[in-house]
């Protein structure tokens, strides 16, 4: 039975963030709200884990917030069920189906002799009366947030068939006055860490495929220069600082090299460069602007933006034979292509009238669907499961981040107090 779609269900659901907004948190911490509901949602009851109230972090609260934020789940209130089940065997399925829950999560948090805790959880199908997953983790209490995200990832994957991305991280740029910060945070906006600060603009952060480094562009030396910075050590090195402008870094899927836009030989053109800055190699020669490269997941082709046809459009370069094919035809401004992780399509920004919106195109059908309705939506970045697209938008004159599902149904807004935020980059799945 498919429940009726609830497009843009008006509930404004604010992620439970109250605790973490301690005074020490950077002001660029993101707060995420859902501003549009999805179609079909899975009704799920998450029973507070036995023993979790003894710890300062509401473990099941984090799991529930993750799932609700995805727009694909509806949380069923477990209040009143007595006694609360903590193990799979304790669950009386009729109690949950009567409340409309199709899935039930139960679990426990048990202290260990060494100070760590054992977190056990079970995911059950209340309708088929079967267990879908059961896991146990022994972790330090300080690991509750990542453990909760991992549990949410497992539930998401079991119930939707797609990988969960709650354990991933995002990078973004915050601007406060004349100060720019490159930050990395958990996918729910928590734990923002400042990676770089500058009094000159920062832009175009991109994660290395293994999630250990971020390449970005800085104007600190009065021109665009590309840096690569290690997240573990904070050390950075210049990737490209040639005569002219150096920008638009894009990692190859194997992380060994990047595609970049350089103007060192005249005009903005595409080059390959090794991740240590060596081995610069020109990809193409055109009299036009070529920029915004993005590798296909198989590394065999590159999407890029070019005005070779008279207006900025998206093209595909096949690396094996150098063939170039135009991919967008509708409209006079189609830019910023990013592949979907399954390689079957790409998202991009199109201008229609005076508006800039994120759209998605399928390679096989060439069909285009516009996903967003803002006036200035830009810099899309696709989640590693391909289901959500983060992008920069504006609200009341301020830069915010927003997310939309790849079918356009689920919409989220991510704002940071007192900062303009922009240039989001979704990190890879943790190894």
């Amino acid at each position, binding site marked *: 039975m*498919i429940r009726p779609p609830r497009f843009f269900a008006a509930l404004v659901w604010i992620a439970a963030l109250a605790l973490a907004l301690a005074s020490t948190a950077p002001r660029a911490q993101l707060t995420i709200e859902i501003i549009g509901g*999805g*179609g079909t949602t*899975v009704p799920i009851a998450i029973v507070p884990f036995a023993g979790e109230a003894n710890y300062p972090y509401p473990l099941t609260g984090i799991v529930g917030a993750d799932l609700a934020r995805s727009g694909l789940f509806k949380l069923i209130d477990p209040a009143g069920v007595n006694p609360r089940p903590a193990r799979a065997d304790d669950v009386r399925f009729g109690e949950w189906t009567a409340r409309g829950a199709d*899935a039930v999560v139960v679990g426990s948090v048990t202290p260990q002799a060494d100070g760590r805790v054992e977190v*056990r959880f079970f995911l059950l*199908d209340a309708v088929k009366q*079967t*267990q*879908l*997953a*059961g*896991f146990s*983790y*022994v*972790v*330090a209490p300080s*690991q509750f947030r990542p*453990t909760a995200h991992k549990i949410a990832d497992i539930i998401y994957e*079991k119930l939707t*068939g797609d990988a969960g991305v709650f354990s991933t991280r995002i990078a973004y740029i915050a601007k406060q006055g004349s100060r720019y910060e490159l930050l990395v945070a958990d996918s729910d906006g928590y734990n923002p*860490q400042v*990676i*770089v*600060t500058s*009094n*000159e*603009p920062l*832009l*175009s952060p991109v994660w290395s495929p293994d999630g250990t480094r971020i390449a970005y562009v*800085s*104007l*600190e*030396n*009065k*021109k*665009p220069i590309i840096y690569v*910075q290690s*997240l*573990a050590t*904070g050390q950075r090195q210049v990737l490209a600082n040639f005569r*002219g*402008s150096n*920008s*638009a870094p894009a990692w190859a899927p194997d992380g060994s090299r990047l595609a970049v*836009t350089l103007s060192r030989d005249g*005009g903005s053109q595409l080059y390959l460069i090794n991740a240590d800055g060596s081995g610069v190699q020109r990809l193409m020669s055109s009299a036009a*602007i*070529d*920029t*915004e490269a993005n590798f296909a997941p198989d590394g065999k082709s590159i999407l890029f*933006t070019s005005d070779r046809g008279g207006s*900025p459009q998206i093209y595909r370069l096949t690396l094996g034979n150098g063939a170039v094919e135009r991919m967008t035809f509708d409209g006079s401004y189609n*830019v*910023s292509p990013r592949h979907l992780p399954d390689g079957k399509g790409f998202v991009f*920004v199109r201008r229609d009238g*005076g508006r800039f919106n994120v759209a998605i195109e399928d390679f096989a059908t060439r069909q285009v669907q516009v996903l967003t309705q803002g006036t200035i939506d*830009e*810099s899309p970045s696709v989640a590693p499961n391909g289901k959500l697209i983060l992008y920069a938008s504006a609200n009341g004159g301020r830069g915010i981040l927003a997310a939309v599902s790849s079918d356009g149904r689920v919409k989220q807004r991510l704002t940071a107090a007192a900062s303009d935020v922009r240039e989001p980059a979704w990190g890879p799945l*943790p190894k």
Partner: protein
Amino acid sequence: MHQSSHRNFRFTLWAGIAIAALLAGCQTTQTTDKAPVEERTPSTGATTPGAGTAGTTGSAVTGTAAGTLGNPLRDPRNVLSKRSVYFDYDSYAVKDEYKPLIEAHAKYLQTTRTARMTIQGNADERGSREYNIALGQRRADTVKRMMLLYGATDTQIETVSFGKEKPKNSGHDEAAWTENRRDDVVYAGE
């Protein structure tokens, strides 16, 4: 994806507790929590002043006759004190009204072989940040090419782009955009 009903879950039956997978699980978790991103924070460009309008607000103009007359680049009556070339939306075509300015700077470079300049291209706030970097670069390259035709040499001119990142006018209307679609000429040492 999820339009398939929740009845179509993949019922991979994970009978029992996969304790075996757990050790690996908690290892990963611990790695995640090491917060590996906070160790060092390079602070960059902390004292770099805005460069976009260099030359038009030179503090060297102290009003002494010798100061202004001695430096044609700063003499407000000299065309060389004019440093900005403005463009139409989405365009890098140089309008005729800027040709005397471009020619004058080119001739200055031709006669002052030690002089070096940077042409900084800029774009208005509409559209992709990276495409605007390329558009600003194109605007700077176009003016450079004209200067080469007028007698400057390639090594004297570096062209760079700030895209839409350093707007002269922070407004969001046509007047601001007009002001921000611009090349600035900055001489070395200014």
